[in-house]
């Protein structure tokens, strides 16, 4: 059986699935990446730190907040800019906003149709209008919080190294808090729906890599940790993560302790579930998610669990910011020029920006490691394992399930070929 799916749908970017199965044996199963390179690392050179923040964000339209946050964090570390407590709180809140909007897009719009035997969410507009409205509501509430915080989700306006060009309006922020509280009902409804859906059976243990903070579930900053053992500080990521090239991809693959590892919601929940908000832990139990989970398709359940967590975390952060009172703050000064690394958990996993600036605060070197790059090797291993498991099924079923496997990762393909 020869399988070729050109331009896998309901993912970001262009990738093809190629598989050969002979007499029930998998000879090959890979995700071919054919996306054009945009060379961000090349043309960021020569730019001032403020322009770098504006440009680097545009690596990805879907995780724009993550790129913006990793970018300014890298610039701040490189230029010795100390951020204030208020800025740190806002950074965490921005990541929650992105997690809610991005996970909602993936779970409701891109994955759910597969589980309902549909090809897109469009037929649901007539069949289940309330569910479509719910999906838009969750997604756009995350999106609208980004508008209030930084002007726009894609692409943020007010974010600069050291802080913001303007602060969120407290009245608008209070309204967003109320809308986030309103999402609790939507989460309950979604749990009910999720319980009626069935994910494909699959199990393959791998190495799970994520950030880890000592005192809270991290979407922003912390050490890089692996389930295979190993913990590195962001500055030393090159001691752990090795990028390498394969013939079938314009994007790089990555490995650490073994030949592949996984980043993203499943890796984060597996590594840090004890730090999830109690409400998210309760949802985890209710959905029968018992970490460590080795079914890659459960990444989408992990995304939902994180959505519940991010909503609760955002409500708490907004309460805290409103109670402190939002203050206008000057952007702190540059105190040195050198190298700095920024790390965040994008919805799709660990994201690293590594910059070096010259004495004139102009970028001379950039390296960006995208979550999807880190997942590619693992996607290929999973495609092989899944193809072997379903080798005797009809061709269209094999095709669909292999596509679903790629989709489970929520890949950001054009972002990976930045």
């Amino acid at each position, binding site marked *: 059986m020869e399988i070729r799916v050109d*331009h896998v*749908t*309901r993912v*970001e*970017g262009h990738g093809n699935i190629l598989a050969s199965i002979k007499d029930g044996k998998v000879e090959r199963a890979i995700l071919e990446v054919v*996306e*054009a*390179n*945009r*060379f*961000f*690392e*090349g*043309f960021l*050179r*020569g*730019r*001032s*730190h403020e*322009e770098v923040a*504006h*440009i680097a964000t*545009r*690596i*990805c*339209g*879907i995780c*724009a907040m993550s790129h913006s946050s990793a970018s300014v964090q890298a610039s701040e570390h490189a230029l010795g800019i100390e951020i204030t407590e208020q800025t740190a709180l806002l950074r965490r809140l921005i990541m929650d906003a992105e997690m809610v909007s991005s996970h909602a*897009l993936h779970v409701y*719009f891109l994955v759910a*149709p597969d589980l309902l035997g549909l*090809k*897109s*969410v*469009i037929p649901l*507009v007539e069949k289940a209008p309330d569910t*479509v*409205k719910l999906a*838009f509501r969750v*997604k*756009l509430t995350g*999106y609208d919080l980004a508008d209030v915080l930084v*002007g*726009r*989700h*894609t*692409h943020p*306006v*007010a974010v*600069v190294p050291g802080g*913001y*060009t*303007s602060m969120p309006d407290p009245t608008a922020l209070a309204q967003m808090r109320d809308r986030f509280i309103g999402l609790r009902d939507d989460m309950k409804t979604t749990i009910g729906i999720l319980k009626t859906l069935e994910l494909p059976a699959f199990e393959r243990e791998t190495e799970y890599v994520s950030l880890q903070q000592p005192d809270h579930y991290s979407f922003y900053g912390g050490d890089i940790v692996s389930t295979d053992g190993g913990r590195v500080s962001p500055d030393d990521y090159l001691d752990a993560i090795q990028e390498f*090239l394969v013939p079938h991809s*314009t994007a790089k693959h990555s490995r650490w302790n073994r030949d592949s590892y996984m980043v993203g919601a499943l890796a984060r929940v597996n590594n840090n579930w004890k730090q999830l908000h109690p409400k998210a832990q309760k949802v985890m139990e209710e959905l029968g998610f018992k970490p460590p989970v080795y079914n890659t398709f459960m990444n989408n359940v992990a995304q939902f669990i994180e959505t519940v967590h991010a909503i609760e975390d955002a409500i708490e952060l907004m309460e805290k910011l409103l109670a402190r009172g939002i203050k206008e703050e000057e952007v702190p000064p540059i105190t040195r020029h050198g190298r700095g690394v920024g790390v965040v958990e994008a919805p799709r996993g660990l994201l690293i920006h590594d910059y070096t600036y010259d004495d*004139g*605060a*102009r970028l001379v070197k950039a390296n960006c490691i995208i979550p999807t790059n880190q997942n590619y090797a693992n996607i290929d291993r999973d495609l092989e394992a899944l193809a072997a498991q379903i080798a005797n099924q009809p061709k269209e079923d094999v095709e669909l399930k292999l596509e679903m496997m790629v989709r489970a990762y929520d890949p950001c393909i*054009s*972002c990976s070929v930045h």
Partner: protein
Amino acid sequence: MVSDKPRVAFFDFACCEGCQLTVLSIGLPLIDVLKHVDIVTWREAMSEKSDEFDIAFVEGSICRDSDVPRLKKIREKAKLVVALGSCAALGGPHVSANRFEKSELLTLVYGEEAGRFAAGEAGEVRPIGDEIEVDVSIYGCPINADEFVSVLKHLLLGRPYRVPNEAVCYECKLNGYECVYDKGMICLGPVTRCGCNAICTSRGHRCFGCRGLVDDPNVNAAKDVLEEHDYTLEHIIGMFQIYSQRAPRVKELAESAAESDAKKKGSEPWRFGSTT
């Protein structure tokens, strides 16, 4: 299923797909718009595909020659082609990769194996209009969702769409925002195409020129504003190159700026961007 509604398709080339996401983020009003069309191809959002469509929205720029045949095929099939966002309309932020040699960029990213990718990556970064005829351009990085809906309505009604051709200053002043120059920052608003409702200056930042130059920029007036605040064209040319590297006027300015900069700084290499 035969329907007489216009058939709409979305395609993308090199970009971040943020403009398609902006369309999706219109939310419920999008569903109302969709009642008047049939979306037949939208890889990012649905699995159905069709080669029969009337209106093609194309996001992304052309970065390599090997992408041209797919773009030309879209043009052949479509009655109308809309450039969706600044990558398609201007080349996008990565248009400034053209400042560097492609071979050098390939080596930077792929190291010793760069040669393997060279053939597939040939060609400059360029807007889709360099390869095919474009009927309407929606500018912006990303697009403004309201403008997308407005363009679609015009196309469905068969009315010509007037692309905004005033400077961002016009919208900024209408909103009553403080002039960015008065705050001590350089801003590209005086010569950049509006239609964004001055979103960047609304949040205390400056205009980065993401919608490109207006058709006939008032360069002399812009020079006056710069001089008034002790800046020269050289200060802003690097900023213009973020989005408008391919605009002939910007190319000319870059050459003259590079010359005068070289004179000033002796053997110092020419640097891009504004002074900070």
